[in-house]
């Protein structure tokens, strides 16, 4: 347990100290959402209709940006080998790193979303649902992303491979996350979506550390 917390704190302080990581993610998030009205026109009705989807997709892409830094640095300087050999099970080490990643990227994304929701003219109920959906869904994004990051460790053109791997895997959370907000805008059924989203995040919590650890072991062989 102590080892778990130590790893979590270490990763978190590394991410926050650099500051650039969180800044980059939030910056991209805001930019991407801001670009859309220029593309589709400023009419509030149109933006309201597609706003939830825009924000969710932008969040996905922003999360994608930060994934390659999850394991890469530790892989390069040998820290990952030490982690694999330590008494802390590799699965828990992955979990600690994902938790730190989420606090440094997923959580800020969720916190920024209400402000961006104002840009696309969502009603207050939808804004609350959006925040909730991102809060519940971003852990899944970090966890699923960790599997893709572990698989592509040390690959040539890692960024491209990572994107190609993670896109199909991100579609289910996207469907239910954005769907929750739309349901809330219509007035009904958001709870069902959020429950399914929670189930997805919990399933990711159970399965992804195991898959990531397996992939990491392959990389360290």
């Amino acid at each position, binding site marked *: 347990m102590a080892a778990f917390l130590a790893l979590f704190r270490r990763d978190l302080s590394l991410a926050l100290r650099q500051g650039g990581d969180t800044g980059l993610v939030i910056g991209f998030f805001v930019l991407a959402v801001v670009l859309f009205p220029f593309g589709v026109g400023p009419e509030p009705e149109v933006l309201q209709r597609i706003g939830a989807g825009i924000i969710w997709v932008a969040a996905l892409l922003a999360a994608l940006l930060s994934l390659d830094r999850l394991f890469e640095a530790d892989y390069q300087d040998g820290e990952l080998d030490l982690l694999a050999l330590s008494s802390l099970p590799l699965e828990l080490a992955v979990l600690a790193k994902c938790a730190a990643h989420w606090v440094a990227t997923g959580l800020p994304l969720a916190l920024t979303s209400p402000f961006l929701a104002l840009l696309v003219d969502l009603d207050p109920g939808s804004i609350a649902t959006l925040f909730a959906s991102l809060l519940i869904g971003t852990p899944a994004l970090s966890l699923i992303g960790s*599997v893709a990051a572990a*698989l*592509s460790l*040390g*690959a*040539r*053109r*890692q960024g*491209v*491979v990572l994107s*190609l*791997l993670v*896109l*199909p*895997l991100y*579609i*289910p959370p996207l*469907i*239910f996350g954005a*769907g929750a907000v739309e349901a809330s805008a219509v007035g009904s059924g958001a709870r069902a979506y959020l429950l399914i989203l929670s189930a997805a995040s919990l399933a990711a919590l159970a*399965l992804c550390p195991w*898959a990531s650890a*397996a*992939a990491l072991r*392959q*990389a360290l*062989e």
Partner: protein
Amino acid sequence: MINWLANPARFMRLSARAAPWCGWAAAFVLAVGLFWSLVVAPPDYQQGDTVRIMYVHVPAAWMALSVYLFVAVASAIALVWRHPLAEVAARASAPIGAAFTFVCLATGSLWGRPMWGAWWVWDARLTSVLILFFLYLGYIALANAFDDPSRGGRAAAVLALVGVVNLPIIKFSVDWWNTLHQPASVMRIGGPRIAISMLAPLLIMAVGFTLLFVALLMVRMRTALNERKAMALRLNAGAIPAPRPGRERVASANTVVP
């Protein structure tokens, strides 16, 4: 039988005879199937001659899915039992599966345009097949992304298994998403009910495609095994000590000092 096939040398001997046989059989069956699909089979009452596209589209779809399952099973065998040929088989078949998926998408689009008036619709089945195509591309990209080919093979094997778990999840999510966003007009996406006159060319083409897959798989596996042999021979050549003394030895990174 899987264990019996584990020996690469035995596989090479068997496939030396089996591959040409499969290849010719595939060519023959496909020729018969094409003739049947284009000439013998009747045009559909509602869809006219466009129904002939179905004879390519549907078998391609069946192959797209079956090959992915094959890749997943072979990957599992490679990871769990370390079967030497399983990984080779998985990597060799992925591009074939991707090709069938592309054919399925393209022919489906060409069937959809005259039938529903749209090149593409985001219905559950089409969307799932599109994502399946991306899964194939991701697998191929990952397998080839490493300088060390065995690392690539292992990573891709894990990805194949992750993907196969994800496939039903994707199908379910897209189904859900689709039932909510169904456009107002009703579209008959299921296609015609199959009459026996249409079932025959469909099955013949399916058999032909399967034979083609097996033939191509064996050719690609033989190629992969040859390429590995070539690499081993190159390494061997570099490690051979210098020829008779007194002769100028060309400096090489692979030369072993005797």
